[in-house]
C-alpha cells in the first residue's frame, strides 16, 4: 500500500535485499521492528531451531540452560532489531547475538568467567577430567558436550557452525593462536571419546 511504503521510506530506508534472507523474512523483520509481535513470532519459528541447537552445544548439552539462553537471545533480538542493518544474513546476526549473550551471561557468573578460554584452566573443568577417565564410546553430541568449555566453544563455532578462526578470535576476544590450540585439543579429545583411542601425538 502506498501510504505504508511512504511511511517506511521516510523513517528508515530498508534494504530491498539482505544476504540470504527471503522477502518474507525481510518483511517480518521490518514489521517486527515496528513493534509487530506476530511478525516476530514468525521469525522465531523460522530461526529458533538453529539457534536452539547452537545454545544446546554452547551450554554443554544442558537443555534447561540452553532454553534460558535461547529465550535471552530472542528477547535481546527483539530489543535490538533496530541495530540489524542487513550487512549479513539475519541468521548470522542471530548466531552472533547468541554467542555474545552466552559470553555476557558467563561474565556475570564469576565461577565461569575465570575459566572462559583459559588454556591453563581447562584441565580443571569437569569435561577435561572425563577425558582421561572415560573409556566408553560416546555419540557425537555427547562427546561435544563433554569437552572443556574453551575447546567446546572453538569446536562448535569453527567445525560445526563454520566460522573462520579470525571471526571466532574477534568474537571471543582471544588470539587466533588460542583458537587453533583449542581446536587441536577439542579434536583430539573427541577422537579419544568417539573412537576409544588413547593413542596419538598428544598422549
Amino acid at each position, binding site marked *: *500500500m502506498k*501510504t*505504508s511504503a*511512504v*511511511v*517506511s521510506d*521516510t*523513517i528508515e530506508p530498508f534494504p530491498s535485499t539482505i544476504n540470504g534472507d527471503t522477502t518474507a523474512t525481510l518483511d517480518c523483520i521490518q*514489521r517486527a521492528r*515496528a*513493534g*509487530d*509481535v*506476530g*511478525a*516476530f*513470532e514468525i521469525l*522465531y*519459528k523460522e530461526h*529458533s*531451531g*538453529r539457534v*536452539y*541447537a547452537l545454545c*544446546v*552445544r554452547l551450554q554443554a548439552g544442558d*537443555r534447561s540452560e540452553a*532454553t534460558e539462553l*535461547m*529465550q535471552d537471545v*530472542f*528477547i535481546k533480538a*527483539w*530489543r535490538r532489531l533496530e541495530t540489524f542493518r542487513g550487512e549479513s544474513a539475519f541468521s548470522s546476526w542471530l548466531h552472533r547475538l547468541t554467542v555474545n549473550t552466552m559470553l555476557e551471561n558467563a561474565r556475570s557468573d564469576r565461577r565461569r568467567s575465570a575459566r572462559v578460554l583459559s588454556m591453563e584452566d581447562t584441565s580443571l573443568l569437569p569435561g577435561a577430567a572425563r577425558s582421561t577417565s572415560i573409556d566408553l564410546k560416546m555419540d*557425537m*553430541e555427547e562427546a*561435544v558436550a563433554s569437552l572443556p568449555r574453551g575447546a567446546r566453544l572453538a*569446536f562448535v563455532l569453527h*567445525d*560445526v557452525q563454520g566460522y573462520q*578462526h579470525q571471526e571466532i578470535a574477534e568474537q571471543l576476544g582471544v588470539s587466533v593462536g588460542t583458537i*587453533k590450540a583449542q*581446536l*587441536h585439543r577439542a*579434536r583430539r579429545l*573427541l*577422537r579419544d571419546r*568417539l*573412537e576409544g*583411542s588413547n593413542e*596419538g*601425538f598428544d598422549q
Partner: protein
Amino acid sequence: MTHDVIRHLLDDYVTGDLPEDARAPVADHVATCAACSAEVDSLRRILARASELPAAIEPPAEAWSNIREAILRDEKAVATPIDRVAMFRRRPMVMGAAAAILVAVLSSTVTAIYLNSRQPSGVTTVRVADATPATLAAFTIEENNYLRTAAALQDVLDQQESVLAPETVAQLKASLRTIDEAILEARNALARDPSNKLLVEMLSANYKQKVDLLRRSTEMTRGT
C-alpha cells in the same frame, strides 16, 4: 620439514587452512608416515561427524510463550494489526482505554516539546518539519475522533456484512488490514520521532483512509 614440525600442521592441512606452498611437503610426508596418515584420517572422521550434527533442534514449546510475555512488557510491543481490529470490534470498551493511552502519550509529547520550547534560544534546535504543540494537540483530538468513528462503523459493518458477497467482504478485510498495518507503522515511527510533523500528517491520512473505507462499506450494505 621434519615429522615434529609437520604433526603441528595437520589440523590446518585437513581443514584446508594451510598456505598453498606448505601443502605439498605436508602431503608428501603424510603419504609416507603411518602415524601422520592415521592422524589425518582420524581428523577427517571427526570433521565429517561434526558436519552430520543436526543443524536445528526443536526448542521446548513453552519457550515462545516466555519470550512473548517478556517482550510484551516492552512498551515498544503492540498487538498485531489483525488483533487490533478484533479488539476494537469485539470489545468497544477497550477502545476508550486505548484512546486514553494515546492521549497520555501525546500529552506527554506536547509537554516535552512545550518544555523544550521554553529553553533559552540557541539550546533548542527546531526543524522545519517539527510538529508544534498545537499540531499535536489538534491531532490528539482528531485521532480520538477517528478511533471512535472507525469503531462505530466497524460495528455496523460487522452486523451488516452478511448482505455483501463473501469475496467483497474478504477484499474489504484485506484492505482494512493493509491500512491498519500502515497505521501501526506510522504510529510506531511517531513514537520514535514524536516531533515529526510529516508523520503526524501521514498517520492522520491513514486514519482518514480507514474511516472513509469503513463508511463506504457500510453504505454498500445499505445499497446506497
